[in-house]
């Protein structure tokens, strides 16, 4: 089974729903080691995305959906996460190109391109206590699933699981990027909000793929 534009749209709508559902929780995570607005920022962006999706032209490709997500996040989120997630979706859109059906290889490439976009802008490495700590394990898990000829659904599930573990792995860390880096040792014990929202989005991708 491949994933088409219907999935892409479903993914993003489901992502918007779970971000809204976890808005307060993301704010709380960000309040502990940042400025308390991560849920607010992401929710503002994804609500705007949903409105735009309602007007998605017929015949759009998964890449069109990703591009729309990218430009909307860039122009509505602000903060650090806006340009970072925006660039992620922009690079992901470029990676999938204009194909209508995404196979496991394409989805693995999508996730890798997204991660690379974030690194390009934010220069974080694994262990810096950022969203990269969720994205990079997800990229690796997707690559492994792809090599093991897993289905696209399995691939996404394993990526989401890896992201979730990656988000948890940020808890004992001192931060080296973003606002949490100002806190030094006091950041220890708190989960990175961007890693958590990354997990929510990848989980939404997997669940909508399973239903596709």
């Amino acid at each position, binding site marked *: 089974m491949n994933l088409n534009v219907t999935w892409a749209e479903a993914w993003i709508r489901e992502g918007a729903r779970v971000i809204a559902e976890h808005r307060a929780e993301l*704010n709380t995570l960000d*309040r502990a*080691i*940042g*400025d*308390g*607005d991560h849920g*607010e*920022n992401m929710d*503002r962006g994804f609500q705007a995305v949903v409105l735009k999706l309602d007007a998605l032209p017929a015949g759009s490709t998964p890449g069109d959906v990703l591009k729309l997500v990218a430009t909307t996040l*860039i*122009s*509505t*989120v*602000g*903060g*650090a*996460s*806006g*340009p*970072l997630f925006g660039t992620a979706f922009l690079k992901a859109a470029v990676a999938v190109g204009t194909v209508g059906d995404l196979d496991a290889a394409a989805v693995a490439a999508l996730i890798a391109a997204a991660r690379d976009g974030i690194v390009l*802008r*934010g220069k974080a490495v694994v262990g810096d206590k950022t969203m990269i700590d969720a994205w990079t394990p997800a990229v690796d898990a997707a690559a492994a699933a792809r090599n093991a000829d897993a289905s696209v659904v399995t691939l996404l599930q394993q990526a989401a699981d890896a992201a979730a573990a990656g988000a948890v792995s940020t808890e004992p860390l*001192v931060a*080296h*990027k*973003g*606002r949490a*880096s*100002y*806190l*030094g040792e*006091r950041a220890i014990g708190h989960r990175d909000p961007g890693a958590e929202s990354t997990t929510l989005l990848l989980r939404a991708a997997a669940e909508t793929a399973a239903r596709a």
Partner: protein
Amino acid sequence: MKKLINDPKNVVTEAVAGFAVAHPDLVRVSLDPIYIVRADAPVAGKVGIVSGGGSGHEPMHGGLVGVGMLDAAVPGAVFTSPTPDPILAATQAVDGGAGVLHIVKNYTGDVLNFETAADLALAEGIEVASVIINDDVAVKDSLYTAGRRGVAGTVLVEKIAGAAAERGDDLASVAAVAEKVNASVRSMGVALTPCVVPHAGKPSFTLADDEIEIGIGIHGEPGRERIKMEPADAIVDRLLGPILEDLPFASGDKVLLFVNGMGGTPQVELYVVFRRAAEALAEQGIDVTRTLVGNFTTSLEMQGMSISVLKLDDELTTLWDAPVATAALRWGR
């Protein structure tokens, strides 16, 4: 949380709309995309200066738009850097053909969004230079952090760069003087109470009745160290230590001393602080030749203050003294 607001989602828009009616002689505003420009923008042949960042730090930056200072301010949501679109629109609105300087506080979000806006402006043929402000000595600048934050020293950069642009300096010179101010100013702050972001509805952190937070940021981020409450003089000395060491400032230096309120601290307290800070500098042979006291770089209703010390030379002093006419800072016209 009690706030004089309507729907939290509309706070920034309504405040900017109110700012427009309150200061029609100084500024014009656009509400979508949202930005504030000086009334006579763009000024032909003058370098435009744009700053911005999350809201909640007022009067910075909207209150600093006007002749001799900023050409435009771009307010994001509360404590959230603006997106590239309004930054681009503001950049276009103040471009008088001599290029535009972006004054950006060193936060990942601000840097990334201004970066994108600068790229877009460049693509439209507007020359843009950027200066990143990082005056906060509470944060160690190292490979292992996002680097020092930009805090109240930003106001001093904006005043002095604004004066340079107003007298006709070209883009490279205005950027250079902004860099020079940034390189010569050091700041550090303290919070007595947290602030409440409207959409959050609860304090960004909690402090016991006898605790204060040293090295606080301006977004309600916790600081580096939490200590027991002390007399004002002791707190001042605690902030001045790292500030003076860092540049370092030395006996014989002429400086501008800036005591900035975080929003909720009564003015009497700011002057109690100023008194000790000036005295402490005098004790070290440092000569306070220019001063600024007040709420300029705030964190909503947070109680607390920051101290900034800027090393002056003749050029910076002359530019500081030059006329300025904004809602929050005004002299000479």
